[in-house]
């Protein structure tokens, strides 16, 4: 491991970290703008031109608030909770391939922090750790509404993780590998997985809405029933971390959706470009796809009302899991026929 390699990886980590945080900050702004547009309003437009400095103003506000810890709370867990949420949201970005290799100062740089051969399993492992932040935060607050939020978050996680995992087996079967690069190599040009697995995409998309605790599955926070759910007792930047990690998670899961189903950085006509031009266009295409899904996440939030809890469980256990299993079996059989097993 030479010095150049360390510098390369370190700068990539820093870049991805800053981009994730920046995108998350501006997602909060864009979400408020979009909510305004959908409700025939303008949205925030006072801080800076078109309100573009709004995220900075929000951040400053969050930092200046009183940092309050309830007397009967478990102090250490109370502090660790938002940290775990943020950590798990950010750590998933390590294995995302942001584009094809770039040449910088004569070095071939892969735009992926780490290429694990178990890519998808790593994502699942880390994403399901994310619920610990919410659970610990909700439990340590020593507040019944926070506890309700935490319980809802964990039961929701269990019911949707399963359908998500089963639906993804089809993608793994088709590409023949767990690494995200295997999955990407399989869908060059416009040979995207969405055309082969629309049902799988639908299941995965619904599940990722539930995983990131976005509406219509935002039952853990659920302002109207639980006064903010797991973050009822949180103030200041600890609350900020919880809210922020939701947006980071949204960005990362949009990126994962676009990798798994929409060809990641691949686009039709990519064979006409080479070298760094190809890399730059590919990165832009990848970000365009990702932001499109971020937009759809927000669009859904401001359209569809929240599910009731029994409806949520019904959808998870009785609809999505059977559908995912049927989809997996049909795909398996078709692949077996193609491979000439019968």
């Amino acid at each position, binding site marked *: 491991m030479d010095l150049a390699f360390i510098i390369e990886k370190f700068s990539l980590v820093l870049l991805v970290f800053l981009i994730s945080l920046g995108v998350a900050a501006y997602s909060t702004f864009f979400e408020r703008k979009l909510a305004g547009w959908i409700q025939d309003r303008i949205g925030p437009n006072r801080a800076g031109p078109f309100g573009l400095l709004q995220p900075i103003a929000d951040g400053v506000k969050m930092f200046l608030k009183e940092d309050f810890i309830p007397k009967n709370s478990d102090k250490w867990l109370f502090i660790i909770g938002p940290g775990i949420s943020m950590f798990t949201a950010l750590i998933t970005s390590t294995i995302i391939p942001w584009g094809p290799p770039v040449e910088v100062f004569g070095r071939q740089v892969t735009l992926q922090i780490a290429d694990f051969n178990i890519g998808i399993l790593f994502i699942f492992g880390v994403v399901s750790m994310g619920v610990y932040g919410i659970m610990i935060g909700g439990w340590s607050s020593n507040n019944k509404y926070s506890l309700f939020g935490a319980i809802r978050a964990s039961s929701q996680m269990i019911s949707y993780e399963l359908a998500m995992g089963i639906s993804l087996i089809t993608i793994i079967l088709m590409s023949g590998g767990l690494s995200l690069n295997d999955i990407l190599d399989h869908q060059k040009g416009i040979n995207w997985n969405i055309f082969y697995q629309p049902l799988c995409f639908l299941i995965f998309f619904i599940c990722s809405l539930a995983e990131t605790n976005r509406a219509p599955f935002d039952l853990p926070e659920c302002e109207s029933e639980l006064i903010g759910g797991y973050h009822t007792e949180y103030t200041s930047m600890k609350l900020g971390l919880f809210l922020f990690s939701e947006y980071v998670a949204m960005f990362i899961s949009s990126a994962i959706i676009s990798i798994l189903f929409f060809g990641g950085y691949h686009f039709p006509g990519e064979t006409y470009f080479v070298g760094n031009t190809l890399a730059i266009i590919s990165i832009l295409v990848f970000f365009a796809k990702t932001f499109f899904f971020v937009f759809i996440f927000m669009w859904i939030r401001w*359209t569809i009302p929240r599910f009731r809890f029994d409806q949520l469980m019904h959808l998870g256990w009785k609809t999505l899991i059977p559908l995912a299993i049927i989809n997996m079996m049909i795909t398996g059989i078709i692949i077996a026929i193609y491979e000439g097993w019968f």
Partner: protein
Amino acid sequence: MESLTNRKKVVSNKPMTFIEKLYLPAIFSGMFITLKHMFKKKKTIKYPEETRVFAPVYRGQHVLKRDEQGRENCTACGLCAVACPAEAITMVANERKKGEEHLYREEKYAETYEINMLRCIFCGLCEEACPKEAIFLTDRIVPTEFERGEFIYGKDILVESIEERIDISKRQNTGKRGVV
């Protein structure tokens, strides 16, 4: 019984069809509606830069008018105070002395005239009761204060100044009161 308005709906509890049970068509049509709203004209009035236009019948802070020569119209007859349902108006009458003809139009005038803006309900009955075209409600907004006492407006606030006349033509043209 026969329905008179023809507006009543018969409640049906028929089971949902398969397409309805999927919920997806309903979700997509809902998302289409919100998409349409994204590109509609916004209803927002950007307040400090733009202000909403008041209706001609808007009833705001009162004004005590002067005539063309700058003399106060009010003769302290007390009809406004009697008409006031909120008991907000009080006044003390006085006789016009020699040499004060340029200040007051008739022989009697109001020495003090007070309206308690906390009691006032801005109904406009004082304006209707006034026989001398002296009191009008305008499109000005009563500002907020920190002390209760500051809401009792005397003649210093209510009487219009000679240089800056308050326009009440919109109010007169509403047809609420005949020409005197």
